[in-house]
């Protein structure tokens, strides 16, 4: 078991009106090669920032501290050429909206092969062959015809498959999926998730699955990392996190997820309040304002991420949730 991604107190600060505001605050985690990590959180939690950091891209003016390694590359201090080589060879990324992410004026073929051809990894014809094979693997009918099409001539689901093929063409070891299925309808979403799972097993590619949807992450990921306001709230094996969440935030997220099974008439609870920027949060738990179980202890001092069970960590003053929440 080799570790492919390793973060230690990884922090991104953005300068704001004189003082630095952390948008990612001390993330520490390891990802084993070939596994799937789910990064879950609401918008503003820093999950997209983290996935972009894995591509070696940080917000302008950001101050980065701690370490973030991908393979042998230390991303926080990598030279631009190193980052480019990394993007060309080792990391692929799929985005939420394939239609906006693919240049509409070029053919699908150009999108698929431009990376490897420009990097000089493959000749045009080799790249074409590999692209066609990949499209076939993505279960697209008549891949040769698809290669000649323009993005506007394909459906959203087809385009997302093209997007995945484009991300895999250089045979990267890590595939980042940033809300990759959010813009798709439920059926297509399920198909794409099944496809990603298959790719992980067959190609041994490491998946980082960024989503706001706990349920969806549960179908695919081995490990879940729940982010809130740039901090890890809970980290652990998927099944355990979903069946017995240790952090009130995880529990709240789970409750607010719509479910197809069970009592359809139950009102969908929502978490009161909004994600607060870290600078405005009082010392203590960043979730305290919105937490049902908030006590004085929560806001009095710093709360650390502690190991609460083998392989499980949580950032809460209660080492376990009250009985009725289990």
């Amino acid at each position, binding site marked *: 078991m080799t570790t492919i991604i390793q973060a230690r107190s990884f922090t991104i600060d953005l300068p704001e009106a004189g003082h630095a505001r952390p948008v990612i605050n001390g993330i520490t985690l390891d990802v084993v090669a070939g596994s799937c990590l789910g990064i879950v959180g609401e918008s503003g939690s820093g999950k997209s920032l983290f996935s972009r950091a894995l*591509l070696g891209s940080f917000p302008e003016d950001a101050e980065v501290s701690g370490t973030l390694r991908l393979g042998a590359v230390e991303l926080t201090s990598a030279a631009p050429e190193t980052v480019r080589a990394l993007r060309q*060879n080792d990391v692929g990324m799929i985005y939420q*909206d394939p239609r906006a992410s693919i*240049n509409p004026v070029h053919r699908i073929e150009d999108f698929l092969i431009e990376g490897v051809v*420009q990097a000089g990894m493959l000749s045009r014809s080799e790249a074409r062959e590999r692209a066609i094979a990949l499209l076939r693997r993505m279960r697209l009918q008549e891949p040769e015809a698809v290669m000649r099409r323009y993005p506007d001539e394909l459906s959203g689901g087809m385009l997302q498959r093209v997007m995945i093929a484009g991300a895999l063409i250089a045979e990267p070891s890590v595939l980042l999926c940033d809300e990759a299925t959010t813009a798709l309808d439920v059926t297509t979403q399920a198909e794409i998730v099944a496809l990603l799972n298959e790719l992980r097993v067959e190609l041994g590619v490491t998946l980082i699955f960024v989503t706001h949807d706990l349920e969806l992450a549960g179908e695919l990921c081995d490990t879940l990392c729940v982010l809130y306001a740039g901090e890890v709230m809970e980290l652990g094996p998927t099944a355990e996190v979903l069946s017995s969440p240790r952090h009130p935030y995880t529990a709240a997220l789970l409750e607010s997820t719509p479910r197809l099974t069970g009592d359809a008439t139950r009102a969908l609870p929502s978490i009161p309040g909004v994600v607060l920027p870290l600078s405005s949060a009082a010392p203590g738990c960043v979730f305290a304002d919105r937490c049902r179980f908030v006590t004085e202890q929560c806001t009095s001092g710093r709360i650390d991420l502690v190991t609460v069970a083998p392989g499980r960590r949580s950032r809460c003053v209660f080492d376990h949730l009250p009985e009725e929440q289990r």
Partner: protein
Amino acid sequence: MNGPLGVIRFIAGRLAAALLTVWATTFIVFSSLFLVPGDPLAVLLRGRRPTPELVERLREEYGLDDPFLVRYADWLSGLLRGDLGYSIQFQTDVGNLLAARLPITAWLVGYAAIIILVVGLAVGSWSALTRSPNVDRGILIATSALSAVPAFVAALVLLLVFSGVLGWFPAFGAGDDSFLSRLEHLTLPAVALSLTYLGLIARVTRSSLKQELTSDHVVVARSRGLGAAYVFRHHVLRNALNPILSYAGILVAGLLVTSQLVEFAFGVPGMGSLLVESVRSIDFAVVQIVTIVIVLAFVVTNTIVDLLAPLINPRLRGKGAR
């Protein structure tokens, strides 16, 4: 645009629209003579001694004894056969005049267009790509200021500085037919002509590049490890080309019209100064034809751009272009 039938329909539609515009122009240009209150002959003869020969010539030329529609039909069929009318000022066929004057104006306008495209695209790209807001603002102010200088003022200033004070360029005429002589004589006029439109093209380039630079697909392309230069050429410039190209028609028409002023200032014997001389001497046949030539150039350029647009941006294909 679905299938070859759709393509044919699209092309036919554009061509028909262009033809209609040109036809309407010929109609307006011809019939306007008869909209002026009073005898059209008086308009045509204004400021001249009405010799019997001249009167007879004009009567025949404009078919003044025929009903209006017959007159127009005769005149139009003459145009189509290449009979562009007779200049009473220069005492020769308008076709001959145009053959002598148009090439010089084409040279001048082409020269100015090259300056505009090269400098305008470069400055616009620089402004869009620079990370310094001061450079961007500086370029914006400079191009706005240039646009505010009328072409004839620019011509006079250039004449004063580069011809009068520094003596680098000749002040008058278009030179002989050799390339170098043309280049020497037409450089100042071309620069004067280009200044107004330089700012326009630079601003259009800047805004369309800026829009593309921040688009998702460009960010994605960079995140795939593609080089900055490649992304700029392949994903930014290519996508920004259509909005920039759509200004080609205006550029051509605007340059042709403005060349009147510049040719007048520099004494360049082109189509523009021909138009000015003809208006002054009320040589209506020449004015008619030059007007039609300018509108024709505008319509033809626009039609070419319209036909090219779907080739550059396939998104336009589904919608039958625009």
